[in-house]
């Protein structure tokens, strides 16, 4: 029994209080809604309306009549299915490499004293200060046949013929991982910092080895950060355009590249819109599936939920 029940004021007074509380709650809600309104409006105007418009366009043919020709074309030309498969393969590979590189890095950073960790964090964030285009070009300069890596490798006698490091899927992956790694490290680092070190000490005091303690205590607690980082990286990868166009040598056609191609080729926007719609739908399906698999950890991890 709570204290409120013990107080037990007479009927009308309780109703009065309840009504006042409800009014307050309502006022607070409206206040919050009011504060959120500009952002909501922005999202509606800049996201929902164009996406809806795109969705509509994808069902129109050259004459503006309803038609499924754009979707039919996607099924009849095998290159479209291959483009989607490439997109998901490249995105998945980038995400996995980012996890392999990013998790140990974030773990290392989270174990450092704050000051040192902050310094290292600057190094992680440094690439954000340069434009994506410049960074991608830089990889081209490093990786090409007469590039720095091949020239040095041959001079040092490590290999004799120039290696094909770029203008293929490998080069694209190198560029994409470089760009995406901070998006993996940041949420992971945040989650790991928030894990209470006493839990690991408690595990150790109960006889767990450091490795066992890591896998049974630390790793599960870091999963929300991992889920957030992985979904962020994966979804951003799906929309990549510049990097595969420049480092893929024309062999890596992702959906964005195909959309650009179709905008040039066809008279109406429908063909390109349909590609966008299919990508959106598949992405949503993948995210829902991923959320189901990670048992309610939500597509964006929802931070430190326990």
């Amino acid at each position, binding site marked *: 029994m709570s204290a409120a029940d013990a107080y037990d004021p007479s009927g009308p007074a309780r109703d009065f209080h309840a009504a006042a509380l409800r009014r307050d709650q309502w006022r607070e809600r409206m206040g919050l809604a009011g504060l959120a309104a500009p952002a909501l409006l922005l999202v509606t105007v800049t996201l929902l309306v164009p996406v809806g418009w795109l969705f509509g366009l994808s069902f129109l043919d050259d004459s503006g009549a309803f038609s499924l020709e754009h979707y039919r*074309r996607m099924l009849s*030309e*095998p*290159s479209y299915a*291959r*483009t989607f498969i*490439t997109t998901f393969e490249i995105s998945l590979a980038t995400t996995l490499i980012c996890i392999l590189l990013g998790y140990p890095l974030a773990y290392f950073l989270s174990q450092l004293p704050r000051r040192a960790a902050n310094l290292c964090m600057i190094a992680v964030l440094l690439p954000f200060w340069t434009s994506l285009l410049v960074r991608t070009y830089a990889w081209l300069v490093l990786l*090409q*046949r*007469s590039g720095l890596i091949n020239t040095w490798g041959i001079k040092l006698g490590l290999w004799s013929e120039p290696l*094909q490091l770029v*203008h293929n899927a490998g080069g694209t992956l190198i560029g994409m991982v470089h760009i995406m790694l901070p998006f993996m490290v940041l949420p992971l680092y945040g989650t790991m910092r928030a894990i209470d070190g006493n839990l690991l000490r408690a595990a150790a005091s109960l006889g767990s080895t450091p490795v066992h303690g890591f896998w049974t205590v630390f790793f599960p607690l870091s999963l929300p950060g991992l889920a957030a980082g992985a979904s962020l990286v994966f979804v951003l990868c799906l929309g990549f355009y510049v990097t595969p*166009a420049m480092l893929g*040598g*024309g*062999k890596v*056609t992702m959906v964005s590249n*195909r959309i650009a*191609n179709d*905008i*040039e*080729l*066809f*008279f109406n926007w429908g063909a390109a819109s349909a590609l966008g719609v299919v990508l959106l739908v598949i992405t949503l399906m993948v995210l829902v599936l991923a959320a189901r698999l990670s048992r309610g950890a939500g597509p964006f991890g929802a931070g430190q939920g326990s």
Partner: protein
Amino acid sequence: MSRQPMMPTRTAFALALVLFSAAPALAQELTVVSFGGSYQEGQSKALFQPAAKALGIKIKEETYTSIADLRLKVKAGAVTWDVVASGSGSAARAGAEGILEKLDYKVIDTSSFLPGTAQDYCVGGDVFSTVLAWNTKTYGQNGPQSWADFWDVKKFPGKRSYRKGVAGALEPALMADGVPPNKVYEVLSQPGGIERAIKKIRELKPHIAVWWSSGAQHAQLMKDGEVDMITGWNGRFDVAAKDGAKVAYTFNQALLDYDCFAVAKGAPNKDLAMKFLAEISKPQYQAEFTKYITYGPTNKKAYDGGAIDAAYAKSLPSHPDNAGKQLTIDLDWYIKFEAQASAAYQNMLTE
């Protein structure tokens, strides 16, 4: 609102100045859009600025990337461009689509133009070639001379680069497959013709290191020595060679094509645009343009009177000695078959 403080006089004055200068009160202003880079720089110096001076108008220059940009403007009913520089193929398709104005050939004199370079919606500005170029460090000055050589990986081992888009990609393949140049479009128009060309490209695919998608890119690939053999636009290779790239090319079996100028549908200064096109189509302008990039004139008279140095003229794609060795791009074929060919090409690329 009355409670708002009075606008400071200086600001009001500045505002008025801006408003007035925006209105074409003194000289009429024409907006011209082209592809930027060294190409547009040459156009600006040789064509746009001198023509503006001659006509007593002002020119505003912009750049764009593809005809899709124009489509967006026309469909949105917000056309701010008058004259649009374009490739011949895109212009033909855009004309058929209805986003260009029909040109007034009563105003523009094309009587001395090369045949086929003045279409309904676009008047030729310069002639360029899609040529076979090679790395002189790999093959020396006497490199591959035909598309059959380009396909011959035993005689000419090395990395190739080919175009990612279908435009100008199927013709060389058929010539390499033994089709004589004058029969190429006949074969391509027959059922199975496109497939035959694509089958030939599929054969070479393992040796193609890069599928290029822009002129800047194919010039850079040769500058960096990234590939040994490539297809591409002759002028870009000359500019690259001038910058020290080890590159040479042949006009043999090259594809002769041209760039042109069109007027956007609903252009704000349509009549002035026609006059402007008439001006820059004159031989003296076209002769001047060749000094900036090795693209030839579409107006044959530009060769008259020594306006173009005789030795230099021999290096231009439309010089009779060179034009005779080449196959002229067939725009009608592209209007009819490009979408179909592109789909097949994409299928081959993504295999």
